[in-house]
């Protein structure tokens, strides 16, 4: 009798071990690394930030035109980001956290447009050709805005 019981226990243990094995595997396997962020997403965020900054500069004549143009850049870039990698929920992009207003917003806008020209330009060489035209026009558009801002 004792022999039969011990046998049945061992069979249960074996079954348990077999059943648990995939679980153990599932728990220890690393999830696949998330894909690297789309470089155009950063350009879109930068464009949104510039649009917000320019909107606040009501005393500067060119600011309204800059706000509108950077808003257009943001939506064109975001549309390309979403086309290539559709967002999981319709709530993307995340609500922007209002950054503190810089002490000299006009100087900040100049610096930011210069950076936008530089960053978009640096990206053009490495992008697939269908994106190079879009980002090249954004870079040239920021250079044009910088010329207007003076």
């Amino acid at each position, binding site marked *: 009798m004792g022999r039969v019981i011990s046998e049945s226990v061992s069979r249960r243990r074996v079954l348990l071990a077999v059943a648990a094995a995939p679980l153990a595997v599932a728990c220890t396997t690393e999830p696949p690394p998330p894909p690297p962020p789309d470089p155009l997403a950063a350009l879109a965020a930068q464009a949104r930030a510039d649009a917000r900054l320019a909107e606040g500069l009501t005393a500067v004549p060119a600011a309204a035109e800059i706000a509108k143009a950077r808003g257009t850049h943001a939506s064109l870039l975001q549309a390309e980001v979403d086309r290539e990698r559709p967002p999981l929920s319709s709530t993307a992009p995340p609500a922007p956290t209002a950054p503190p207003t810089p002490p000299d917003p006009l100087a900040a806008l100049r610096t930011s447009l210069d950076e936008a020209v530089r960053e978009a330009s640096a990206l053009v060489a490495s992008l697939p050709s269908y994106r190079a035209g879009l980002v090249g*026009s954004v870079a040239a558009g920021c250079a*044009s805005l910088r*010329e207007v801002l003076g």
Partner: protein
Amino acid sequence: MNVDAVQTALGTEHAALWTYGMVSAFLGDQTAAAVAEGANLHRARRDTTERWLRDHSATPNPPAAAYLPPSPVSDGPSALAALVAVEQDTCAAWRGVLERTDDQGLRTSALEALTTAAVRATRWRKAAGTTPASITMPGVASG
């Protein structure tokens, strides 16, 4: 094909150079330096573009005898409008090159040509009193 897009861009450089030469008679002394600068930069771009084509076993297209601006040029404002038009055509042609090549060197010079033409177009629009003076998406028809 790269070569066709570059030939198109070369065509706009020839047209720009011709236009800068033609308008100078209608513009005052205060724009003379900017006209000369624009002409020099288009001449340099034409030369490097022709060189690129020869290096890629293509024969650069020669310039036309004359170019027709979108509207007749008869005074200062129409001269500025012709400069704006030719710079915007240049933007479109170089953006076309960007979209058709994976050659990094060519991309870099196409982007430089697109950006500098956009800045010059903006200056001429500013001089003409066009609003907005800026171009949101240079090289795009609606831009």
